[in-house]
């Protein structure tokens, strides 16, 4: 899967890193007419299994670009990105889709649930794309919904659920295929303070259960709940500090 010879930036053979996530000199460049916009300029960091990391930065800092790269929604213009031993930066679209399915669980600010589908079907979706059979799938989806305390809401549609409940459905969907990373993009951005606390408490519980969590946010209060904070500014890592 990993074909290093296709990457002009890495002529030498580099050993597969031990870290869960390894970003090495990542650049992302957008062509805006004749001008080149460097959204990321040589970002390098590693994330170990079981870490609880927050990525913080003002808008325009390159934070979203970095999140898209971590989430394998996009590939870097330059540099190497390894996740769980896979060299993502050299992958095709379909290989990326499979990595997203297996390794990443997304939690979005606006939940991004399928409006017409029940909570159960929403949580089943990643398993459908993983090719898991119907009965096994339902069982796992139900168990995951129960673990986020929505066992009694499995047949409700998103519009019949509160914001906090919707986000918990989204978290269940992110968790159901046992991903390596839970990648949350402003997960409390659309929630009131009380519900935000509930969701953050859930993240802490999930972290305590051994999940690796990456939280992308612009709120310092939320970032402070993590154990490590990476601050991004102008496409570069400004600070990388362990706070707990």
């Amino acid at each position, binding site marked *: 899967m990993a074909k290093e010879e296709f990457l002009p930036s890495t002529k030498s053979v580099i050993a597969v890193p031990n870290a869960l996530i390894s970003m090495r000199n990542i650049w992302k460049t957008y062509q805006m007419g004749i001008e080149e916009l460097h959204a990321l300029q040589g970002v390098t960091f590693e994330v170990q299994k079981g870490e609880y990391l927050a990525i913080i930065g003002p808008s325009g800092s390159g934070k979203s670009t970095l999140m898209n790269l971590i989430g394998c929604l996009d590939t870097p213009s330059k540099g190497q990105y390894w996740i769980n031993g896979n060299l993502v930066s050299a992958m095709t679209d379909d290989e990326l*889709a499979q990595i997203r399915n297996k390794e990443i669980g997304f939690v979005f600010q606006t939940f*991004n649930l*399928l409006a*017409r589908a029940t909570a159960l079907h929403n949580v089943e979706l990643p398993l459908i794309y993983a090719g898991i059979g119907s009965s096994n799938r339902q069982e796992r989806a139900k168990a995951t919904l129960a673990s986020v305390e929505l066992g009694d809401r499995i047949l409700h549609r998103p519009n019949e659920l509160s914001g906090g409940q919707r986000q918990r459905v989204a978290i269940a969907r992110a968790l159901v295929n046992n991903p390596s990373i839970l990648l949350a993009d402003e997960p409390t951005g659309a929630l009131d303070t009380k519900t935000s606390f509930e969701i953050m408490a859930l993240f802490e519980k999930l972290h305590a259960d051994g999940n690796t969590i990456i939280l992308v946010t612009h709120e310092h209060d939320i970032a402070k709940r993590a154990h490590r904070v990476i601050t991004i500014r102008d496409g570069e890592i400004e600070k990388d500090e362990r706070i707990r």
Partner: protein
Amino acid sequence: MNIGSGFYENLKMAFATLRSNKLRSFLTIFGVIIGVITVMLISSIISGIDTAVKKQVEAFGTRSIFLYKFNIGVNTGKRTQEERMRKPLTMEDAEAIKSLPTIETAVPFLNITSNFFGQKILVTGNNGKTSAAVRLQGTLPDVEKAGSEILVEGRWFTQSESDSKADVCLIGATVVESYFPFESPVGKTLEIGGREFRVIGVLQKKEQLFGGGGGNNDQSNAIYMPIGAALRLKPYADDLFILAIAKEGKLEEAKDEVQDLLRVRREVPYGKPNNFAMETAASIIEQFRSISAMVFMAMVVISSVGLLIGGIGVMNIMLVSVTERTREIGIRKAIGARQSDILMQFLIEAATLTGLGGLIGLLIGWALTFLVRLVFPSYVPLWAPIAGFFASVGIGIIFGLFPAWKAARLDPIESLRYE
């Protein structure tokens, strides 16, 4: 990804989407429905007519040769100058054909339905009923041997009745129904063209090409009488039709002999086409076949237009659907859907849409064939629903391909951001 379960999942999702857009879905597949109804109706009519024609013509016998001055079967357009100038066939022609070695018998039928002035000859019964629509034919006793009409009651007229121009007649099943609904007609009388005729026989009901009504096409709405009696009703009648029956296994030779004989008798110059028509059961069936082939082509065109309109509708609505569901596509991609998964999802959705239209069309068309059956003898050939269904599914796949491809190629990041 497991294709089987993926297909099933996609089908389930497709139905869920259709359910949430009922009206729009229905409007979209309207063209497909019309197309499939057309296939069902026209194919059933064609097969019905085909079978009826075959039955009716074969009822005259596979050894029969039909002779007439004009074309038999289907007339298209006006007769040409040459055709209008043609002399009628004569009794003597019939007599000469009868004596050919390959011919078993030849029977003339003199049509006197309308009299010399073009007026219809009226038939009045004792029950007070009067009709001008009964086909009146003068013929010879040989008709019994020709086997074109089957006697169910009474007898044919004898040679002596024929020679003496007796006012006796045999009546078809439709005539029995209208003039003698509650009694046996044999021995009763009918007034034909002002003369009193005694009914001596009843003929078997014939397979009808076009049902009901007793119109001109009703082969059973006929009265047969001796030629002499017919000539008395219409003195200069010359509208003569000859039915010749070939000897067993001699049909082809008989056709040649009859043709040669008539060409000589009617003085057709060498190298010129016949100035009369000669048909057999097979050739008349062939004529109808070529017409039904034309109708079939028309059907293909009409239903293709329907399906094409349906297809464009499907493409349009699928493009709208892809735009509307950009975010959904983004979500699906984010959680692991590959391009092929999205492509399949939208293709199956389009095919389900049109396939459903096909099924609705089949049901409506099938129901309508029952109505058609009241007027035409029709049945639905097996290929019609099968072809209709597969064509509609195929339309969905063909016209769904572009929207599905667009959906599959959407960028996940932009799609997730789409409002």
